[in-house]
């Protein structure tokens, strides 16, 4: 005998731990199965793109902190590079190395957060998340001793970086680099062969490589589906071509693969930082650039690899110190293009881990 069920509407969020911020999912449930899914975003919308049109390029850098607040360094770098490519100002060589070191530290911190919350979504409530936070905490300490801020760093500038790291930065960084491999091995032991974790993530939320490309996915969400696409290799910036590192990719494109890509990228980022610390040349950390930068009238689309994927800046200049149009291509928003398809027919717990594996940041989605 089967029991008849009637579809009902369930609201998850905007205040709910599994939505990772003020994100609302409105799902039509048929028993345990999702029949339709709608995402409602905009609770954090601050109209940054409009506000940016009446601020100078340098004044707009703090907006990029507050867009992707879990990866402020790469947001800052994306805008600084876009303006540099537009104007021809250049960063000194030491600043490029500092940019790489801080971007990769940010990637480790962001991936720790992403994987920690994903494990939390999968049922290992809070304990692994706080394990992951150990490293993130140390990285934020490094940010704090360099630029005074832990989240909204405002560190990268047009023509270099804002500050030279203090003397105590380098031994603290070395200590972190020495213990990171042990830590990642520890997580691997705890999680990778954990039966419950495998059951919750294997073959769940599968995205084929074709769909991932066609749906404009980028970052670990794209690489998890087996597409070896990373802007650090495809379009090297800040001298990434100097460093030896690999692009980890998944096989099936499920939640587990996206998780493993992030775990592996932490190791690769550690490799990059080690090489950068060995090779970093002495010299100035920034070039003199006027406060009011006036690019020639024109436009540019410039992108870099943030922890979430391709963060792009489409800037249009009319020759004045403020951008005529300022568009931030948000990887976190665009990675959700396939969410509805992924959700339909899935069970609710599977949809929650799928959303967790895409790693959204609401500041960047809503802007």
């Amino acid at each position: 005998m089967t029991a008849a069920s009637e579809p009902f509407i369930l609201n998850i969020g905007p205040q709910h731990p599994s939505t990772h911020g003020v994100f609302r999912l409105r799902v039509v449930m048929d028993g345990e199965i999702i029949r339709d899914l709608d995402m409602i975003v905009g609770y954090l919308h601050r109209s940054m793109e409009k506000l940016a049109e009446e601020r100078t390029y340098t004044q707009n850098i703090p907006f990029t902190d507050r867009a992707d607040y879990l990866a402020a360094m790469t947001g800052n770098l994306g805008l600084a590079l876009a303006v540099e490519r537009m104007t021809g100002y250049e960063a000194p060589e030491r600043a490029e190395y500092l940019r790489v070191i801080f971007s990769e530290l940010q990637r480790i911190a962001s991936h720790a957060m992403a994987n920690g919350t994903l494990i939390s979504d999968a049922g290992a409530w809070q304990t692994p998340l706080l394990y992951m936070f150990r490293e993130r905490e140390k990285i934020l300490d490094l940010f704090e001793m360099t630029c005074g801020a832990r989240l909204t760093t405002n560190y990268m500038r047009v023509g270099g970086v804002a500050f030279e790291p203090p003397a105590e930065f380098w031994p603290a960084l070395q200590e972190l680099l020495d213990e990171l491999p042990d830590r990642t091995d520890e997580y691997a032991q705890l999680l990778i062969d954990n039966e419950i974790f495998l059951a919750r993530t294997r073959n769940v939320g599968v995205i084929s490589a074709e769909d991932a490309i066609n749906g404009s996915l980028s970052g670990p969400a794209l690489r998890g589906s087996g597409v070896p696409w990373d802007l650090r290799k495809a379009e090297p910036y800040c001298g990434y071509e100097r460093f030896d590192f690999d692009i980890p990719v998944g096989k099936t494109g499920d939640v587990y693969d996206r998780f493993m890509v992030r775990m592996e990228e932490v190791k690769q980022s550690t490799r990059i930082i080690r090489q950068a610390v060995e090779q970093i040349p002495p010299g100035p950390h920034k070039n003199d650039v006027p406060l009011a930068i006036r690019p020639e009238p024109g436009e540019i689309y410039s992108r870099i690899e943030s922890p979430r994927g391709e963060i792009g800046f489409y800037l249009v200049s009319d020759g004045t110190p403020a951008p005529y149009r300022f568009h931030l291509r948000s990887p976190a928003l665009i990675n959700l293009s396939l969410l509805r398809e992924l959700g339909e027919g899935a069970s609710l717990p599977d949809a929650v881990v799928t959303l967790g594996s895409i790693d959204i940041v609401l500041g960047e989605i809503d802007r």
Partner: protein
Amino acid sequence: MTAQPVAEALDRALPGIVVMYNDEWVEVAADRVDEALRFLHDSDDFDAAQLSNLTAVDRYDHFEVVYHLQSLDLNHQIALKALLYEHEDPILPSAYAVYKGALLQEREVFDLMGIRFQDHPDMRRLFLWEGFPGHPLRKDWLAMVGPHTPGLARFPYENLDAPDRLMNADNLRHIEAGHAEIAHPDTGASGQTGQGH
């Protein structure tokens, strides 16, 4: 990649679709933009597998919708533009049939710029609520009442004679009120230079 081979191939395959091109982008007829996207997506030479970025610019007398297409295998980027001269209710064919990645990007453009996309499966606002007055990224939608541009008052050394959209009466009053003594970095005089700390 440069726009010339793209424009030539488009013109050969779909006569009359290219309006103009320069080094950076190809402008195509707005009502046929979906054909151009389909051609570039299916073509082996261009292999535009991914819609990397879709956005729009308000140029006062027209809207520009900008498409950045990406080939992952050939590692190049193609920029397409479509111009819309209708102001009240501009409409453009949707890219969704070719690129699923257009789903949320077109909703964003509709929400903030007020350009509708025909045959989009879910043409609703994305960030703002239904009933929000206007589309904020349009230039005639003012963030503040009157010609206030709060950012500029911090740059008092700007050339006062320059024809500058940021140099309005409000900011000039601010400057005349006594911040004018800070030197311009180009003159070599001391003062606020560099990146401001």
